[in-house]
């Protein structure tokens, strides 16, 4: 069976894909889905519980929580997609170079990657954000740096084993240059673990971005990121629990989608791990 057919037959994987598509659609159609301006304050409607007008209630500034959660999808997806893309591009470059050329450069680079992985991921991101300051693009850079070593290790490992295969020897014998061998012959053969890692990293990136914003180190307020909404809601948790409940459900739902798809891709692309 083809990979796509096996994925379609994977029920939880399909559920994950549906959740992701739903999230992406909400992010693209946010101005039409949102019922209010996410930054618009309504002082007369502060801390209002869920109602027909404000289905998730309002916060302490009278801002509509539903609209903020809807716009939060944009920020969350933007940061997670871009940071994983940064990590993937850097990780593939570093891993391919290390695995293909080996030698002292490989030793130095991989020690450096090991050192980066010696930090608990969120701590390294916190450190980078402390240096660069709260800004959406800085979150992208911080998470990109944090996840780069994971991709580098996977790609290097794949390159080490694939470089010894006969098809690579044939490509070398055929007079192909290094870049052609790396990008046309070896890299396409190690895409399966990269895709799985990318999907799982997307889930972690959403959680990490929310955690950074919650600590006040992510997207600066009043940007309606999910972490920011939760951070604002913390002080009003007892009197207005709806401020806390809905953004948390949105984060869980979104992360669940990527995790379900990642798990399914792992089953489909590498059945040994099932």
């Amino acid at each position, binding site marked *: 069976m083809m990979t796509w057919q096996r994925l379609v037959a994977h029920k*939880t994987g399909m559920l994950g894909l549906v959740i992701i598509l739903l999230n992406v659609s909400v992010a693209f159609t946010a101005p039409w889905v949102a019922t209010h301006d996410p930054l618009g304050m309504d002082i007369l409607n502060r801390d209002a519980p869920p109602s027909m007008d404000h289905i998730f209630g309002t916060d302490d500034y009278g801002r509509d929580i539903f609209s903020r959660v809807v716009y939060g999808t944009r920020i969350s997806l933007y940061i997670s997609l871009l940071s994983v893309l940064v990590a993937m591009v850097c990780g593939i470059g570093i891993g391919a170079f290390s695995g293909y050329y080996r030698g002292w450069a490989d030793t130095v680079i991989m*020690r*450096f990657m*090991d*050192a*980066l992985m*010696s*930090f*608990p*991921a*969120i*701590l390294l991101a*916190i*450190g*980078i954000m*402390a*240096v660069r*300051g709260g800004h959406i693009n800085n979150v992208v850079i911080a998470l990109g740096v944090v996840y780069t070593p994971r991709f580098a290790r996977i790609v290097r490992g794949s390159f080490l084993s694939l470089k010894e295969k006969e098809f690579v020897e044939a490509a070398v014998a055929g007079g192909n240059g290094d870049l052609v061998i790396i990008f046309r012959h070896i890299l396409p053969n190690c895409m399966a673990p990269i895709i799985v890692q990318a999907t799982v990293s997307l*889930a972690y990136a959403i*959680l990490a971005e*929310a*955690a950074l914003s*919650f*600590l*006040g*180190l992510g997207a600066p307020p009043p940007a309606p990121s999910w972490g920011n909404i*939760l951070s604002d809601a*913390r002080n009003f*948790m*007892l009197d207005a*629990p709806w401020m*806390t*409940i809905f*953004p*948390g459900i949105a*984060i*869980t739902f979104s*992360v*669940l989608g990527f*995790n*379900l798809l990642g*798990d399914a891709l792992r089953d489909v692309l590498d059945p040994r*791990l099932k």
Partner: protein
Amino acid sequence: MVRYIIKRILYIIPTLFIVAFLIFFLVHLIPGDPALVILGEDASPENVKVVRETLGLDKPLYTQFVLWIGKVGMGDFGRSIFTKRPVIDDILERFPVTLVLTTLAMIFSLLIALPPGIYAAVHHNTRKDYTFMFCTILGVSIPGFWLGLMALLFFSVKLGWFPTIGFVPMWEDFFVGFRYMVLPSMTLGLFMAAVVARMIRSSMLEVLRLEYVTHARAKGLGEWKVIGKHALKNAFGPTLTTIGIQYGMLLGGAVITETVFSLPGLGKYLVLSIYSRDYPVVQGCILFFALTYMVINLVVDILYVYFDPRIVYE
């Protein structure tokens, strides 16, 4: 065995050096002059010059790094800009809280991860297994800090089972202290529980297919004896590595959990130091966290030898 342990300890040194190098240069990239942070923006240039000289900031960066790494090697992490106390004293004062939190979280996660993980492996590809897998994916999808807030809302405010905010050290009053730590450690440990449960399931699946397990069954041993005594020990090795790696997640998660539950641990101290731009503390805390993570992984590697003695010979 001793040779293996020495080799592993020696292996840590270059990594730790690179980690220290990264932290030093990361912190020195922070915009703004630390002397101005200490004296305030209105400070006179003369005073700024004196403070810069006192802190050694007038020296070239590589000289500063060599001096700093030398001091760190002697256990001197510098002094806090605000409290003026040695950073290492502040770290050692707060670290026990983080250590207790992460250890309780780890114990909690193992308690809730192992039985269902083993159970799912034994009932592989059944509805019970699928339900288990879905629950573990849900477990790694819930943000810990949100779960903490929800737990506070429900168990502390609504039901009144646990204190809301505050802290009593367990080493002063064990039971009262424990009540304060239940919710933080449970919310922190849930993510790890889900990861460990999945790992133990897949390790058990691999081991249960091996011939020696079939042999144990053929000898007429009871199923739970085969699983508990023969399969689990071999399946636990890879799980132990996962526990080591996940302990790092717990240390990172502790930063957020301590903020949610207002626990006076190292994580909360780090966050407050970032807000107040107390560079020596930020530098010291991150280095200490990284060092702790490396030591935990070293211990895990050594413990691994107990579960798989072949490691020593490889």
